């Protein structure tokens, strides 16, 4: 039972982490609370639906974040850049954006549930006679690689340095000659791309339809509220924590109770915490 809870908890946490990472980067860099983040997850799932029959499942998973990242780039240049560093405006703007994206997908692709096959159908042994779906192992690995990769990229690369500088003070960054609009656009595209990756990876296990994004946005927000907006390491840790807590209740009891427990604890933490919600840096 314990092995199952840990494995299941990490798998739930992996999906939370993949969707929370993008949300937290976008907030950290440009102060945008992106309520359309769930729609980028949905677009990633649709990219998987449409691309995998053409190029195969694995290339489709590789292409999905690029496609959604490109969409993110366009959205940033046409809409998001007018909403920087204004959380209220950004919430209203991205809420509207979310509706537009959902309805466009509904018009183009219709309301039907879409089919994505499972690339790996086998299970792996966890020891103690326990088995676990191989695809969930892929999810956990992908989240770990994406999280650690992004963290290293921010810490070590030249662009990462610019992103961190912009996060601390975008005016100073600009005055030092950095191309801040480009940094912002890059960060937004990466956030969208991560959401696209999440969508592509969950599509084989989930139901793909235009309204599917909301539950991912809610999950990502839960993590980001607990971790503090803008902190990658905390986002990864809290994703795993929320996933493990969910599984610890849901495996032996049930999922409705698990939601009640998780959200009650989240409320208590937020209510008792005295430090500001927003971490100072990415």
């Amino acid at each position, binding site marked *: *039972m314990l092995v*199952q*809870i840990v494995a*299941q908890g990490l*798998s*739930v946490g992996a*999906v939370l982490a993949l969707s929370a990472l993008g949300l937290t980067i976008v907030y950290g860099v440009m102060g945008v609370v992106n309520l359309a983040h769930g729609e980028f997850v949905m677009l990633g799932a649709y990219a998987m639906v449409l691309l995998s029959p053409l190029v195969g499942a694995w290339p489709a998973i590789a292409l999905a974040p690029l496609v959604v990242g490109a969409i993110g780039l366009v959205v940033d240049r046409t809409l998001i850049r007018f909403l920087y560093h204004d959380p209220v405006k950004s919430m209203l703007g991205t809420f509207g954006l979310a*509706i537009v994206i959902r*309805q466009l997908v509904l018009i183009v692709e*219709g*309301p*039907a*549930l*879409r*089919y994505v*096959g*499972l690339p790996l*159908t*086998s*299970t792996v042994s966890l020891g103690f006679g*326990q*088995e*676990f*779906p*191989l*695809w*969930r192992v892929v999810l956990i690995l992908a989240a770990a690689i994406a999280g650690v990769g992004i963290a290293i990229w921010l810490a070590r690369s030249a662009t990462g340095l610019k992103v961190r500088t912009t996060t601390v003070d975008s005016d100073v960054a600009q005055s030092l000659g950095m191309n801040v609009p480009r940094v912002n656009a890059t960060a937004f595209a990466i956030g969208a791309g991560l959401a696209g990756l999440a969508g592509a990876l969950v599509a*084989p*296990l*989930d*139901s*793909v*339809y*235009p*309204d*599917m*994004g*909301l*539950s991912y946005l809610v999950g990502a927000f839960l993590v980001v509220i607990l971790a503090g907006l803008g902190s990658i390491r905390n986002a990864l840790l809290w994703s795993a924590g929320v996933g493990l807590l*969910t*599984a610890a209740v*849901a*495996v*032996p009891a*049930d*999922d*409705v109770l*698990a*939601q009640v427990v998780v959200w009650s604890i989240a409320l208590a933490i937020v209510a008792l915490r005295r430090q500001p919600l927003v971490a100072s840096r990415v």
Partner: protein
Amino acid sequence: MATEHPTRRDVLKRAGAAAIGTTAVGSLLSACGSTGTSSSTGTTTAASSGAGGGDTIKVGVLFSLSGDLSIAETSMKNATMLAIDEINARGGIGGRKIEPVVEDYASDFSVVVQKARKLVNDDRVAATIGCYASASRKAVLPVYEQGNAVLLYPTFYENLECSTNVIYTSLVANQHLTDTTNWMVRNAGKKIYMVGSDYVGPQTYNAIVKKLAEQQGATVIANRFFPLTQTEFGSALSDIRAANPDLIWNTIVGAGIPAFLKQYQAAGFTPEKTPIFSGICTEQELAAVGGAAAKGHYFPASYFETIRTPDNTSFVQRYQARYGSAQPTNMPMQASYTSAYLLAAAIEKAGEATPAAILQAFPGVSAHAPGEGTVTVKDNHHTTHTVSLGRANDRALYDVVVRFAPRDPDPFPASIVPASKIPSCPRREAS
């Protein structure tokens, strides 16, 4: 001559509430309290003008042709229109053609009330065929009862209703579940694990199956419900593995269905060892599951596209000739089609096309249902049916495993309603 109103309304809606499928019940009755037009006089005016000018008989066709429910309901509208055109082609009813008045309620349970009012009070239709999710039926009940109009409701639902003004033309639970439960306990095992979406339809279905299964000597080892929008079932699957049941009884609906079946397959469960019997999973939901994950699991219904009888082959051909073969024909479509024929038979029997006369004529009226045989409306406004048990094949369609004997409908089954609580039927539901 169809008066179509394909107005596209974009409906902002919470995820999931959308795709809940067949049996969602919500108390979205707030909009029904104030009837704009004089509903008290509706009875007489609707009755007198329902007879029309003598040339045509107006029939309302009320489905979602846009929004989230349109995937199921557009096909039901199509099947209804096919039947109406066939009836007109053979000369109509007593020489009078049916004039369908098609309304799109855009998957919105307040729009459905406005559209029902229009059909009842403005168009003064003789009857309406329509609604799908229980929430839509519950929402329009006051309109039909206050206006003394007629609604033919063409899909299976969660029981416990018996309106004077509704004719329920598809299955209720005693027809849908009794023989299936007996078969499943006899053939798949006595250790049952139940899952379902957390609202009234699945809870009622699971309660009935639990009672029936226990009467057969089976044990229900768990009865687990999920929030409607949930599509992550890993925790439940871990618990199922530990519990090691003989079979799963499943009433997860809508978007949860593909997720549950795909995750079940991914977790290494096989239908040979632990089959899933679903209560609410037509071919439309199964299409998104895909043949690989769907194959070998069960669903009972009064109609499957794969039924190989000459009348069904012809029905499928006529439907596809007109609407294409993108979607398989299914139970709600067949019930919608049959509803038009039941209505025609009732008007013929009544001798006039007024709602009051039609309601009075309905008990005892029969029609031929493709692939199923004769169905008859009983005194309790529900319809006799013959249910078959289907098993999914690798094209995500159901093949018939066994065909059960016909059953009379019982909307208040003794398994869940104490004898003292069984109401008179039909009765006013919304006043």
